[in-house]
């Protein structure tokens, strides 16, 4: 502890260098936290999936529909307590530049199936009683500046024409990682306005016990195996995961960039520490002469490296945490609930420790081993 004033004095000598090195570490750690948070946020979307829900989709691909008649047969499967269904609408609003999900849902079963989609009871009631009503996520309402009671026109791409909806309710997700930019409306409206009969895009099942999931999947898929629309049944988690993997290997991309960032900053800090040590050769010799031990000098250099890197990392990691949680950044709607997790912070500080050791070790060893006589010979 006695050494701290000495470490601080040393750092103050090249103020600019200390400042730049610290900020360099901050930037690197900020970037690291951001990159890792992309991955953790994408995965959080699958973590929040309820274990007691399953999704039944067409075995050919999600773009194919399933007959409405499956509803009753699914409800009869042992272990299934509730059945709901929905369809993807795929409309565009305004110039179509902002992408958001639009779902035709069954008003009775959908909101009991997903208790995390929270709607005030009076608004839900109004929604159920009006064919053209819509319930919109809070994030989407704010994004477009919509208000309850407003008419909104979507241009259908799959279901042609202009579709006018009246916003009757706003939902807020109970979990931040859930999308708050969806647009929900009545399945019956879609069905009635479309010339041919439409079919659900997928069914959601609620199970009495999550442990029944494999058995239910088996029963359902066997039941429809030889029908016109074979099914693929999986847990909600697997369903969400399939969308995450569609982006490609994001994890690998982010990790590789993160590695490059850490190595680049190692070069900057390591270089700064080495330059500092080289300039102080004479001084180290003097300190040794007046009785500082080799070990003390080693510790002195390591402390200096540690102080710079940890200060920098603290600013960078905490800065990222504060910035993202206060700005409500959500990756333009692609990354709802973007957050720097505690695990990310812990890993960040772990990397900082390695950074401190790696950048301080060479100069510290140099100070440790420095022979006094030889070093003093160079002092003018």
């Amino acid at each position: 502890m006695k050494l701290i004033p000495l470490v601080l004095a040393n750092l103050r000598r090249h103020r600019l260098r200390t400042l730049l090195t610290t900020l360099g570490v901050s930037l690197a750690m900020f970037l690291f936290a951001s990159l890792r948070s992309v991955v953790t946020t994408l995965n959080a979307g699958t973590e929040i999936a309820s274990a007691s829900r399953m999704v039944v989709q067409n075995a050919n691909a999600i773009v194919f529909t399933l007959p409405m008649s499956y509803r009753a047969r699914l409800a009869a499967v042992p272990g299934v307590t509730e059945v709901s269904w929905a369809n993807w609408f795929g409309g565009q609003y305004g110039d179509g530049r902002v992408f958001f999900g639009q779902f035709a849902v069954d008003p009775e079963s959908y909101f009991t199936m997903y208790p995390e989609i929270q709607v005030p009871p009076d608004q839900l009631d109004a929604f159920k009683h009006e064919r053209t009503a819509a319930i919109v996520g809070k994030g989407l309402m704010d994004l477009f500046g919509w208000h309850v009671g407003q008419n909104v026109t979507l241009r259908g791409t799959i279901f042609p024409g202009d579709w006018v909806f009246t916003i009757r309710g706003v939902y807020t997700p109970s979990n931040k990682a859930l999308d708050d930019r969806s647009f929900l409306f009545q399945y019956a409206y879609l069905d009635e306005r479309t010339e041919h009969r439409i079919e659900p895009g997928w069914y959601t099942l609620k199970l009495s016990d999550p442990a029944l999931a494999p058995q239910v999947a088996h029963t359902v898929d066997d039941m429809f195996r030889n029908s016109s629309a074979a099914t693929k049944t999986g847990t909600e988690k697997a369903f969400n995961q399939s969308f995450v993997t569609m982006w490609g290997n994001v994890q690998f991309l982010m990790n590789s960039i993160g590695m490059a960032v850490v190595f680049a900053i190692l070069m900057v800090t390591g270089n700064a520490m080495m330059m500092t040590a080289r300039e102080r050769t004479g001084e180290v010799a003097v300190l040794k002469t007046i009785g500082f031990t080799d070990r003390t000098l080693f510790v002195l250099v390591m402390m200096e490296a540690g102080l710079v890197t940890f200060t920098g990392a603290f600013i960078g990691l905490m800065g990222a945490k504060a910035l993202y949680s206060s700005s409500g950044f959500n990756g333009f709607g692609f990354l709802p609930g973007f957050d720097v997790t505690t695990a990310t912070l812990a890993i960040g500080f772990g990397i900082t420790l390695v950074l401190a050791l790696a950048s301080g070790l060479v100069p510290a060893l140099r100070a440790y081993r420095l022979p006094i006589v030889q070093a003093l010979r160079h002092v003018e």
Partner: protein
Amino acid sequence: MKIPLVYNVRSIRQRPVSTAMTGLGIALVVAVFVAMLALANGFRAALVRSGSPDNVMVLRRGADSELSSGISRESARLIAADPRVAVDAQNRPLASPEVFVVINIPRAVGEGVNNVVARGVNEQAFPVRNIHITEGRTFRSGQSEIIIGEKIVPRFAHTALGDTLRFANRGWVVVGHFSAGGSALESEIWGENEQFMPVFRGEVFQSVIVRLKDRASFPEIKRTLEGDQRLTVQAQRESDFYRGQSTLLTNILTSLAIMITSIMAIGAIFGAVNTMYAAVSSRTSEIAVLLTLGFAPRSVMASFLVESAVIALLGGIAGGLLALPINGIVTSTTNWNSFSEVAFSFRVTPGLLLSGAIFAVVMGLVGGFFPAWRAARLQVVQALR
């Protein structure tokens, strides 16, 4: 008078480790820069190459992709009969009414399935789309046979010649592999449209692609088709259609690349500033001597700037070399417009390497500016004391 470059080169040699570390820091920034843009480049190239300005893509009006489109047999016949459509040697129109669906097929490695485009075409699709069979043969009319784009052959199971791939409750024999000039079409499965139609979406095509006799006649055919009372379609140049599909993801990747590398670049510039200040202060007396000898402060400044730029350039070249091996590596993502997997190669182009090198030099110049400024303003008397 200019200070000779040899002076800088010898100075750099005096402190090789420090120089190397600064250069390497810059190299890593440039490597990330090149690699990320190569990714964006590769994706865009795969999609842009899928479309030709000579072709017209006809979709149902209001549809933003083939997936959401639908065109009846009657409409397809009317479109193909337009006089501006090119004809082959047998005087048949070069028009391809296509069935477009997305199917789940199992991956080659690991478990799980992924979405792949299955496109039902007629024989005219081959000349219209510039498709070449690389292995095996094309499918025979009336048979449950398919051919597979060569990019996805290694990525999915049951795609080798002679294998049977199961989808739509039927087994399909793989009889060929095809290439399409590196385009996104190489990530598709092709079969006969009359075979795909009944098993997937019924009596409807998703799109009609026609080859124009003259590419300049596009505005006319667009006006005719879209104005025809019997049709509810929209016509687009095929090249514009695919470019439109690539913009969203390309923009995301490019802005991500720029954001990440600018933050990294600031860190690398800090490193360069440190190095150059150290260089200036350790060479104080040398600089004073140079100034005494009559070199103008401007020359001293230029000399240090050049030194910094050269270190950075070397770093930039190293970074480019570091990123070069990823050229050609195949990766994949999803084309959200068609909801299907697109496999594509990273593309490191000479232009990209050049911008990486320029980026490095800019980092060097910015990082070297203030240290060089200090060197130029050195007080000779004080420095020589």
